[in-house]
């Protein structure tokens, strides 16, 4: 099998871009007091986006820890922009207790 250079280059680019950003972004998931504006944006984005393919899921179904990972999964699956996904995560984590 001949490996064409295009996907390979994309992969290398992806790795380097991805890893260069790993460290500084680490603190973004911290459970700070939910900013009321972010909470409101998140609630709206959740209502607009999270019922498009399946029933909208109850924030209480998962813990903060689980939502952190699941929202990433859905961000990729549903092509949701990163800032919207962050708002949705903040809303879900502030609404599950």
């Amino acid at each position, binding site marked *: *099998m001949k490996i064409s250079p295009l996907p390979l280059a994309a992969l290398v680019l992806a790795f380097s871009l991805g890893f260069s950003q790993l460290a500084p972004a680490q603190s973004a998931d911290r459970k700070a007091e939910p900013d009321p504006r972010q909470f409101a944006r998140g609630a709206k984005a959740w209502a607009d986006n999270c019922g498009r393919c399946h*029933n909208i899921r109850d924030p209480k179904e998962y813990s903060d820890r689980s939502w952190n990972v699941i929202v990433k999964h859905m961000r990729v699956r*549903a092509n949701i922009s990163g800032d919207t996904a962050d708002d949705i995560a903040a809303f879900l984590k502030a609404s599950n207790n």
Partner: protein
Amino acid sequence: MRIWPQQTDRSHSDIRDARSAPAVKAIGLAFAAFGLSQPLPALAQTQPSIADLERRVEALEAQVRQAAQAEQELQALKAELAEVKGRTAKAESDASQAQSTANQAQSDVTRVAAVNPAPPDDNSLIRFQLTGSVVADFSANDAPGSHSSFGEAKFLPIFLASYGDRLLFEGHMEVSSTSDGETDTSLEYAQLDFLVNKWLTVTAGKFLTPVGQFQQSLHTPWINKLPTRPVGFVEDGGDEPLSDIGVMVRGGFPVGSMKATYAAFVGNGPRMGDAGPVLEGFGGDDNSDKAFGGRVSIFPIPHLELGLSGMHARIKGLEAVSGTVSQADYALIGGDFAFTKGYWDIRGEYIHSRLDAIASALTPDDLLPTDIPRTTWNNWYVQAAYRLAGIFDNPIVAKIEPVVRYSQLRVNGFSDFQENEEKRWSVGLDYWFAPSLVAKIAYENSNFPEDPSVNSFHAQVAFGF
């Protein structure tokens, strides 16, 4: 403390009263003496009666008794005062001790907090999450020679693991029981996603082909509102690509007040099979031409998505025992829409694909390749569902969702491939115990170009976790 001076004031006045008591007593005694001294001259002059004197003595004695009682009371008051003072002093010292303990605790807390800031909910770098679904179904139909059967039970675990904020692994397996009692496992996807920035994710590995909407977004059993897939959007002999192995970029971004999404991939691409191209990810490529394609979508209004998909690949004919096979172009275009507002879920999808003329075996056992003419597939469905919660308050009825779907596949060209042609009506009722726990029943009527139509009944229970 504020209580103390008040106490002091009161005690001062008490003391004043107490001090005045001996004076009263002295005056009383003086009066008594005076009283006693008086009768003598009077006795001389008036000779007061004995009884009279006795009364006076009694009165004086009473006064003396009163004075003694006052003295006693004074002593009791003094004792009480002393006790109150003691208690107050004790309370004050207790209070100040408590205050200093509190101060100490407070300063401990501040010191500890300064060293260890409040921990975030989860600050581990690697986070793991297991999700997935299980499904069990039953079906029966009236086709000659067929019988009802509990279908394959399936367990579809999904493993998710993230590293920091930018890396996600998703792995999805399917474990199912086959009709001959074996257990089948297959890999639906296993991909590494790099969340490069808020608008771009780069994925490597085996992923669901980003073409159309059913396979990417709806085929999961607790999401699919009917127990069956639409005609043509199936795993074997279907027209919608299932998965590929390669690299993919995807994301979403705002366009003015609207939203848009994109996904594009390069992968090993399909291989030839007995029902047409097999649109699945193969862990190797049988030719050096990569498949590429993707999908873009916009949301002209928040609850309506319109998508456009395309794909291109070069397919190599399946080798026969002898003879030479050829390669041919494969191309696909598709459109999809989804309107999901309130209790409505209305969607549809169309796929048109084409394989140019190719010399290929249909199975590896074929002695010689077959000359397959150029063939096209036209495949579509529309589906509408409405959750009765929109009309009825009754808690049971509100969980019911009727669904209706029409789907069809038409094949033009090679006659063997036309065996998959079908037109089908599906009507179903879902009962949602929870957002991802559903019991479905459905009735379907299928029509084929040559064979008689078939009616079938399906029931399914699905749970996503």
